[in-house]
């Protein structure tokens, strides 16, 4: 039940990983327990900005929206994405067209090879 899974080149052992997980968790919790709990509540020590900036009321103002995530990745691969989004036209006949073209391609090539 807890045995190893052999992949032909190596193996995977879940129990070793879980053991490691517990050890790591123990060290993490130990490190955390070394922190100080005697900070002054309700003062500026609670603030999330050390610089003392105002924290906006609504969290909306300080979130990065999902559309902006991986902006650089998308910018760098822009030609690729332009092509990829180009074929996702969303027109029903195009969808059928890609399918029929693929089947036709397969049908022609399986008779050739």
């Amino acid at each position, binding site marked *: 039940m807890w045995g190893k899974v052999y992949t032909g080149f190596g193996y995977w052992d879940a129990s070793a990983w879980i053991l490691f997980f517990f050890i790591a968790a123990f060290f993490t919790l130990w490190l955390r327990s070394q922190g100080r709990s005697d900070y002054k509540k309700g003062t500026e020590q609670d603030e999330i900005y050390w610089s003392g900036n105002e924290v906006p009321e609504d969290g909306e103002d300080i979130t990065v929206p999902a*559309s902006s995530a991986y902006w650089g990745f998308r910018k760098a691969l822009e030609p690729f994405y332009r092509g990829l989004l180009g074929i996702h036209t969303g027109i029903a006949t195009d969808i059928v067209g890609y399918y029929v073209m*693929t089947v036709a391609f397969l049908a022609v090539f399986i008779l050739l090879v």
Partner: protein
Amino acid sequence: MNWNDHLPALILIIPLFGAFIAPICSLGGKTARNFLLVVISFITLIVAFMLWRHVLANGISYYVMGGDKFNLSLPSGMALPVRIILEVDAFSAFMALCGAIVSFAGALFSVNYMNRFSGMGRFVSLYCLLTTGMLGMMVTGDIFNFFIFIEISSIASFGLIAFWRDKPTAIEASFKYALISQVGSMLILIAAGTLYGKYNMLNMAAIGSVLKMGTMEKLALVFLVGSLAMKCGSFPMHMWLPDAYAEAPTGVTCLLVAVSQASLYGLMRVCYSIYGAAMGSSFIPWMIIVFGLASMFFGVSMAVVQHDIKRLMGYHSVSQVGYMLLGLGVGLLVLDDARAMADYGFTAIKGGVFHIFNYTMYKALLFLTAGAIYYATGKRDLNEMGGLARRMPYTTFMFVIAAAAISGLPPFNGFVSKLLIYESSFAVHPFLAVVALVTSVLTLASFVKVFQTAFLGPEKNSLAKIQEVPAAMLIGMAVLTAAILGASLFPSWTLSTLVEPAARALVDQSGYIGAILGGGM
């Protein structure tokens, strides 16, 4: 009468009965109808489990519809089977078990999720019908019957995708799926007709026993492979999939995942059990591998830039199906070569089959968590979410588990199946493994994005009043979470009991044929 003998038929009878009785039951009000939905899918799950146990213990089980006896496959000295025969080997039983688990979880989830909407009698009816179609595709041993079940599941899913008929996008997604699926079904019917015209048989095992490659068989193979690859959403034919998955009600999306796996099952059944050793050239295996690679890479690169949560997950479905196509394609490539098969081919098949189980579980769970978010907030756009972890701790916990599993983080089950696929496809060509690895990295990247934008971050004022979803929905998700955790913590047990018999049955073409034709192949 021994009920164990009738299990292959019962697994179809019970959801079908549920579909038929649902309109009457819904006259009795909300409670009766919800009770029916949950009870029917739970009994289906139990029957699927018993069928799986039965098949593991007694080998391939088959069932002759309308025969004098349930196992009389060759009546009165005929050389060929004539009736509709259900044939369940370990692979089918494994798939049916996966499908039944997902169907049960989706039903539990739908009870609360769909509570607000009208027309639920039809919903229950169609849901049971979709379950019937999916399970029928998995247990049938007859190629025309396979077409019937694929159509039953398609028609039920058109209705369910367009269930919210007041949403324009739902109608649009359903129409696109209906159009492409109708053309695909016609090609499947042509292929079935071609095989019938050539061999005067419709039984898959009987066709497999006499099949010799010729022009018509090649065309039939191409039509079947193309259509079924379209149905399970591989790359150039996947455009309907994110639309349909995103727009369907979430309990249904969860079941649609299992239905796409049924199409994958059909693809593998056609390639391994009907054509199998007779396939001759390595063109179709390579094309399946190429489909797999393209689906993996392009699917995930589309997913990274999405910001609709269900659409993002829909593109991940495309990319995950690629893994299974890769694993099972590598297995198909070396089907004739006993040495390579023992070396890495069987590992690849094991990886593919294990990935089917994992994918069905964690993708269904991911869709359910997305549905839970939609239920609580009424939003699907990630840009408008944030800080949900404080409000919905259980959902967050289950989302993290599912996301870690789909990204292939150890120690979760996604890692194990992906590892098996990497290491075996590496032996064919390193490029395959590289694409698979890159896909895994991008999967992790996009789920980090979902986790960070939806669950972490400061709380938004617009989301200050939301609450955790009701208990029935949480139980529905917990069923799948338990399956994921079980497969993660006991990978070797899962592999040896669940996956290996299925993989062995998939490779064993003569066993599949011999069970119907009485051995002596």
